[in-house]
Structure formats: structure tokens, C-alpha cells
């Protein structure tokens, strides 16, 4: 690589690097490295003058390679690649040495930090000489979009995109869209009726000319890459002919089989084996629940079929497999409620008047099983005292370590509604009250003013074992009132557990399906927690709403809109640059053993039967290099991460380390 003319640029990053690393010494030292033509240090390399310095050198000194020693490439690699491009140098002829995150910030000793910076620069210089220019491939973006999950975040994203004139496929697992929001009665802090604000959006989404709705459906497979995904959807059999069904509800009325509704009614109400989950459901088409239908169980009944006025019942219907082409995907798959049965001392599932938060939502809902009456499990008795327990399953290393973010406000709302509906005494047991968003703390103050008792202390247990007079027949909430420093036992009629939110039980599977990652708590991981909260590491796949972390309605809606904006921006660009650092097979040396084919996570390697050689479909290759690690004859090369490049990077680092071992480094001040 004698023709390489390398420029080295060492950044001070203010005092971030220069405070620990002798940047001038590093730049001076780099001058003597092979092929280095110029080596400079500068206060802020990423600033305009810094970039211009590089551009000028490329042009005036005829540099053919550039090394910048500064921060992590995850931060500024695109910046400096851009500078090279502007000066006419192929961006892949640029290499970065990370002397901030991996050196100045983590090393205490200044001499050691300087030596490490030198080694990292030497490694980059050694590598860059072997780098090759690469041309990016551009592929057109399919303007159709897939939205997975029809809760409020998914609906919002769908409407935004559909309104812009692009087509959206909205896939929902349940028979109706609406998500958890459809289950609620009131929303905090404004106490608007949830159905009143959500239903119009649901109808809008379903009737929109640019939306195709798939309910009772799930995504089975995702192939392809940004701009060009092929998605396979399983549309489960409803056993109802959708075009024929008018949604009159007679089937549901006549069905003799009553089932506890664990989904929409949160287990506190019933539905039939053929059912529309709730009156405002969209679409207004029932499904037959195969597992509970008498006909599917015993072969007789067919009451629904007998009474259906349009003959829409189709017991022989089968699942449909649908293949779609989309350019972008938004995941808005929502959350699961923490199962309070996991905390036995709170008695949920054992003590009948302990309710989960979603059960209570359904109790207060005018369309719920009690038509909005707040009553005990017997269905009649109005409670005279109610305890609300915060942080159930949240902020607890035994369960979920995070704050579920919505429970405080939800509990305050519950307190207000209990007061409003029953006039009962309400006790809120909390660790901290967190009301940070707009108009939230005002709501807290309002509830305080309503006479709710606030007891600061995490509840130890809920029991029906009376200890002293006045406790018989009650649920006793035992906690330390930490503001008094005394143990208290509060007898109440009803306990509401403000359960936390959890990632969907199948979040991990879904993440793998869509090629994104999950955090330890199984929430989907965004590209950047602050600056890119709705994108993921996989181009073309975005997240919105509670699947990314606990979130209330306003935040979910905002994310739905944000994800839609990101997608529309991509569509607007028309085409997308795909990974230039792809793998390529050397057909001359390939022996056709086909080991590489199953090793590729993307199925991007095909076997050319005529030549008996492997071949990589460039557009499908994501550049992971797993095939390279597999190929024994080294017949596959991963561009930009070739063996030559990596080995020389390693040699650069090793040689400098050996050098420092042999002689002490003298830093020139």
C-alpha cells in the first residue's frame, strides 16, 4: 500500500480528550507511522473549521486515506465520512480511532492514556491503508407501510400516514382494534371519556381509503430490508363471512355458551363463544372462539348459524395466509398488565375483594359488567372503604425494577372515581407520588382536596385474618406509615392493586421476528433513548407506544405520530442507501461446500447449481460477516471488514504495544 497518503487528525474534544491524553504528542508520534503524510491536532475536529481542515488537506496534499482520532464512531463516523465525501474522497477510505470513550474517559493515568491513544491511532493507520473505496447501493422504497398493533399508538401512526396519502396495513391480534385504551372509562388528568375520544379514531382508521385492516391476525414472518420488506400475515379464521355479516349481534345473543372474558373484560365479565368484544368494536364483526364453541367441541349446536339472518356463519372457514410488500414497519404492540398473583401477600386471586387495576377500570366503565357501579365481587355491595396500592410489581427487584410510570396517575384517578361513585373512604398507599406531566400535579392536588387519605408506605400485606376488633370481615392492609414511623393496619372493603406494566409475554419472539432487540426487561430497544426514541437499530423498523417502555396515552400518541413522521420522511426520500459493506464470494476458490448458506441469518446466500458455487445476494446481505467466520477456505470477504484490514489493525495495535514495552514513552510537553 505504498501509494497510500494518510492524514491523521487528533481531536482535543475540548478537555474531554486533551485533559487526559497528550494530543500533541499523539499527533507528533503519528507523523512517523508508515504512509502518514500529515498529522495534526485540533480543539474540536467535528466543528466546521475542523472538518474544513480535513477537506483542505485532502485536496491540497492529495490525501488518499484519512484517520480521525476522537470519539466513538457511533457518534461522528457519519460526520467525517461526509467531510471526506465533500473533498472527493470515498467515505470508506476513512477510519476512526476512539480515544475518548475507550481511552481518555476510562483511563486515569495520563501517560497510559497517551500510550493507548497512540496504539489506537497506529491500529487505525495500519488498517486504513488497506481500506477500499465502496459504492453504496440505492434501492427504491416501497411506499406502503405495515403497522403492527391497533392500540392508540398504532391507530395514531396509521392515521398520520394514511392521511398523507400512503397506504397502511394495520394488523391487530384481537378481534377489534382499540387496545387497552378501549377498556378504560376515564382518562387522566382531564377525565375525558376514553371511548368518546378513541372511538372516532378507530372508525376513522377502519374506514380510511388508505388503510387495510387485518384484525384477528398476526404477522408470521418478515423478510427483506428497509424499503423492501415482504411480510406474511396469518389472518385467523373468524368463522364469519365478513362481507355478509352486518354486525347485527343476533349470533352473540343466541349463543348458549358463556365464557369469562379474560381479555377485554379483564376477567371480571363474561362474553359468548361467538362475540364482538365490545359494542364499539372495529370492525363490528364477531369471531367464534374455537376453544369454547360447543359446535367445535361436540359437533352440535350451531345456534348462531340457525339464527344468522344473512347466513354469514362459516364453520369451515380456514386461516388465510397473506403476503404483503411494505417499505417500513411500525411496531406498536403495547404492554401486558403485571400479574398480581405473583405477589401472594397482596391476596389477588385468593381474596375476592382484591381487584387489579384493569378489573377496576371495567367496573367503572359504563359499558362494563356492572354498568359502571363500583361494587364488591358479590356484584351488589357498595364498598365503604377502599385501599389503593401503588407500585404493584414495579420498583421491586423481586419483580420489575422499573417505575411503570402510569400507576400514580391511574391510582389518583381511581381514588377520584371511587369517591365520585361511592363516597367511600379512600386510602392510597404509595412510595412516591410521581406526577411530572402537564396538569398531572394539579390533578393530585384535586384528589388531595377530595379527602383521600394518603399513606406513605409500601404495603406489606393484605389479609383477611383479623387481629383486633373492627377488623373482622374486612380486608386489612398492613403497612408502615413512614411519615409517622408506625405500623398501621387499615381495614377496608375493597383493595385495588395499581399493577405495573410489563412487556408483552411474547415480546422477545416478536423482536426476533422483526430483527430488533429487547432490553433486559424485554421492552423493545430504541435506537437512541433521547435523540432517536422511535427508530430501532434495524432500518425501516420503528416502535411506538408502550412496547418500548411504560407510557401513558399522551406519550403513546406522540410516539405514534413521531414514528409516522420518521416513516414518511423515508418514503419522501424515495430511495434508501443500503449497507455497502456486504460480503462477496470468491468463486474461484469456493469449493461449494454450502456451509455458509445456513450460517446466514438473512438467507442471502444462494447456491449456483450450474457453477457449484455460493453466491451472495447483495441487497439481502446486512454485512454481519458470519459467513466469513464460517468459510474454511476464506472464500468469502466482507467488504470494509476484510481479514487483511482487521489483521493489520490488530498488528498496528500490537506493534505499538510491543514498542512501548521495549522503551519508556517520553512525552514532550
Amino acid at each position: 500500500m505504498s501509494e497510500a497518503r494518510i492524514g491523521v487528525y487528533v481531536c482535543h474534544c475540548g478537555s474531554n480528550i486533551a485533559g487526559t491524553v497528550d494530543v500533541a504528542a499523539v499527533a507528533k508520534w503519528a507523523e512517523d507511522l508508515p504512509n502518514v503524510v500529515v498529522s495534526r491536532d485540533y480543539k474540536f475536529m467535528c466543528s466546521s473549521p475542523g472538518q474544513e481542515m480535513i477537506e483542505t488537506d485532502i485536496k491540497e496534499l492529495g490525501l488518499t486515506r484519512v484517520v480521525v482520532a476522537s470519539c466513538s464512531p457511533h457518534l461522528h463516523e457519519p460526520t467525517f465520512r461526509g467531510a471526506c465525501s465533500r473533498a472527493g474522497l470515498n467515505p470508506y477510505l476513512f477510519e476512526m480511532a476512539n480515544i475518548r470513550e475507550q481511552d481518555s474517559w476510562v483511563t486515569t493515568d495520563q501517560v497510559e492514556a497517551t500510550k493507548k491513544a497512540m496504539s489506537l491511532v497506529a491500529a487505525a493507520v495500519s488498517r486504513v491503508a488497506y481500506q477500499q473505496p465502496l459504492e453504496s447501493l440505492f434501492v427504491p422504497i416501497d411506499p406502503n407501510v405495515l403497522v403492527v398493533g391497533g392500540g392508540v399508538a398504532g391507530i395514531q401512526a396509521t392515521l398520520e400516514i394514511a392521511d398523507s396519502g400512503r397506504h397502511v396495513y394495520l394488523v391487530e391480534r384481537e378481534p377489534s382494534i382499540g387496545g387497552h385504551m378501549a377498556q378504560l372509562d376515564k382518562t387522566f388528568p382531564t377525565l375525558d371519556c376514553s371511548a368518546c375520544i378513541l372511538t372516532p379514531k378507530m372508525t376513522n382508521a377502519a374506514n380510511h381509503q388508505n388503510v387495510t385492516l387485518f384484525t384477528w391476525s398476526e404477522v408470521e414472518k418478515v423478510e427483506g430490508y428497509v424499503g423492501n420488506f415482504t411480510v406474511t400475515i396469518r389472518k385467523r379464521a373468524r368463522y364469519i363471512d365478513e362481507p355478509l355479516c352486518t354486525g347485527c349481534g343476533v349470533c352473540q345473543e343466541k349463543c348458549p355458551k358463556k365464557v369469562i372474558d379474560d381479555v377485554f373484560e379483564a376477567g371480571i365479565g363474561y362474553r359468548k363463544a361467538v362475540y364482538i368484544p365490545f359494542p364499539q368494536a372495529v370492525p363490528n364483526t364477531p369471531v367464534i372462539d374455537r376453544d369454547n364453541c360447543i359446535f367445535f367441541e361436540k359437533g352440535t349446536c350451531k345456534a348462531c348459524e340457525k339464527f344468522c339472518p344473512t347466513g354469514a356463519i362459516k364453520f369451515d372457514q380456514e386461516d388465510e395466509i397473506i403476503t404483503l410488500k411494505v417499505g417500513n414497519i411500525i411496531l406498536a404492540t403495547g404492554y401486558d398488565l403485571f400479574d398480581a398473583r405473583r405477589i401472594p401477600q397482596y391476596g389477588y386471586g385468593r381474596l375476592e375483594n382484591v381487584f387489579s387495576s384493569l378489573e377496576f377500570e371495567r367496573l367503572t366503565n359504563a359499558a362494563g359488567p356492572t354498568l359502571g357501579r363500583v361494587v364488591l365481587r358479590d356484584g351488589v355491595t357498595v364498598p365503604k372503604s377502599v385501599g389503593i396500592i401503588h407500585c404493584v410489581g414495579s420498583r421491586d427487584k423481586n419483580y420489575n425494577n422499573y417505575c411503570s410510570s402510569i400507576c400514580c396517575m391511574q391510582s389518583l384517578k381511581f381514588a377520584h372515581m371511587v369517591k365520585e361513585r361511592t363516597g367511600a373512604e379512600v386510602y392510597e398507599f404509595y412510595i412516591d407520588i410521581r406526577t411530572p406531566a402537564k396538569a398531572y400535579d394539579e390533578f393530585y392536588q384535586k384528589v388531595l382536596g377530595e379527602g383521600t387519605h394518603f399513606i406513605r408506605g409500601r404495603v406489606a400485606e393484605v389479609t383477611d385474618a383479623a387481629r383486633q376488633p373492627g377488623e373482622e370481615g374486612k380486608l386489612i392492609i398492613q403497612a408502615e406509615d413512614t411519615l409517622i414511623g408506625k405500623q398501621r393496619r387499615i381495614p377496608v372493603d375493597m383493595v385495588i392493586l395499581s399493577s405495573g406494566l410489563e412487556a408483552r409475554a411474547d415480546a422477545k419472539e416478536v423482536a426476533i421476528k422483526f430483527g430488533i432487540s429487547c432490553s433486559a426487561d424485554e421492552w423493545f430497544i430504541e435506537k437512541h433513548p433521547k435523540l432517536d426514541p422511535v427508530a430501532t437499530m434495524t432500518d425501516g423498523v420503528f416502535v411506538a407506544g408502550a412496547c418500548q417502555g411504560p407510557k401513558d396515552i399522551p406519550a403513546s400518541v406522540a410516539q405514534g405520530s413521531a414514528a409516522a413522521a420518521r416513516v414518511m420522511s423515508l418514503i419522501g426520500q424515495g430511495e434508501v442507501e443500503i449497507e455497502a459493506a456486504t460480503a462477496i464470494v470468491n468463486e474461484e476458490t469456493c469449493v461449494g461446500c454450502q456451509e455458509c448458506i445456513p450460517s446466514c441469518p438473512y438467507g442471502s446466500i444462494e447456491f449456483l447449481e450450474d457453477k457449484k458455487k455460493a453466491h451472495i445476494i447483495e441487497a439481502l446481505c446486512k454485512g454481519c460477516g458470519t459467513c466469513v467466520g464460517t468459510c474454511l477456505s476464506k472464500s468469502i470477504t466482507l467488504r470494509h471488514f476484510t481479514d487483511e484490514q482487521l489483521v493489520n489493525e490488530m498488528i498496528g495495535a500490537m506493534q505499538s504495544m510491543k514498542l512501548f514495552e521495549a522503551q519508556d514513552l517520553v512525552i514532550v510537553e
Partner: protein
Amino acid sequence: MPDNGAGKSFYERVAAATPGGDVLMKCLQCGTCGGSCPSGADMDSTPRQLFAMISAGMEDEVLSSNTPWYCVSCYYCTVRCPQEIPITMIMYTLKRMALARGHYHKDAHINWSKSFTNFVELNGRSFELGAMTLFGLHNPFAIVKQGGLGVQMITKGRMPPVPERIRNMPQLTAILNEAKRIAEEEEV
């Protein structure tokens, strides 16, 4: 706040003397421990309050509290603590620290523990009757009230009149003496 010779804060010493005690600083002050404690009503400060006092360096107040002495070692606090703080073990640490510095709450049942331990160190086995009697010397009131029970236990064959002793007492004594020497080393 006064530090000991090693220059370690009170919190650091409590944490170091308790297996897994280094998470003490993560106490959320949620009160689950105090709420769960079956004898919590009798404590002058709840465990949570002690933790706040420990982090505030209030060594005298903490070590003269009756709280550790009311701990019945049921471990409810430990298993329920959302921060996985080994609260029961911290109570043991506080008891030892209180004993070591020589003055402790009047409710401390130090004589019972001492009588019990004495018999173990003497025979290798515990001896209820002996411990009760010995304890009774310090606490004659108890022996009057529970005397009838003792008689009943003896007649039912549930309280042998003489202690059992293990064969290899020298070995046990050697182990315990060495352990105490190690523990002393630790104190310095």
C-alpha cells in the same frame, strides 16, 4: 460524625459486617420492612428509620435503639424488600455492634442469648432447662410465671434435667476460640 480508627463511616462498617450488606445504601425508605414486621409495633424505630439514621451517621442513636432486639428473625422484611436488602442480617450486625460497645437498650435480651450461648460453648448442645434457669437468675419474674410450664414440660418428658454434651468438645472449643480470634482481628 465520629469515625472509628479505620476511618470508615458507620454505614460502611454496618455494610461490611453484613453478608450482602453493601446494598443498604439503596434503601428506598418504602417501609415494607416495618410494615411486614410481626413485632414492628413494639419497636421504637422501624427498620427503615434505622437505615436512614445509619446513613446519617447517628451511631449512638441506632445502637441504643430497641429495634434489633425485637427482631424475631422471621425474614419477612428480607424477602419482601424491593431492594433486596438483607435486613434481618443487618439487625444481627447491629446487635453485635451494640454488644461490642457495651451499652445497649434495656430491652436487649442479652442475658438470654448469653445463657443460651454459654451452654452451647460448654456442652456443644443447647440446654433449655439450664438456659431458662440461668436466665431466670437475671429475670426472676419470668421464672415465676413460666415455672408451672417448666414443671409440665418435665413431667411430659420434654425437658431433660441434665444437659447432653458432645464427645469432641476440645475440637469445638478450638474452632470457636479460633473463630473469636479471627473476629477480634476483624474489629481492629
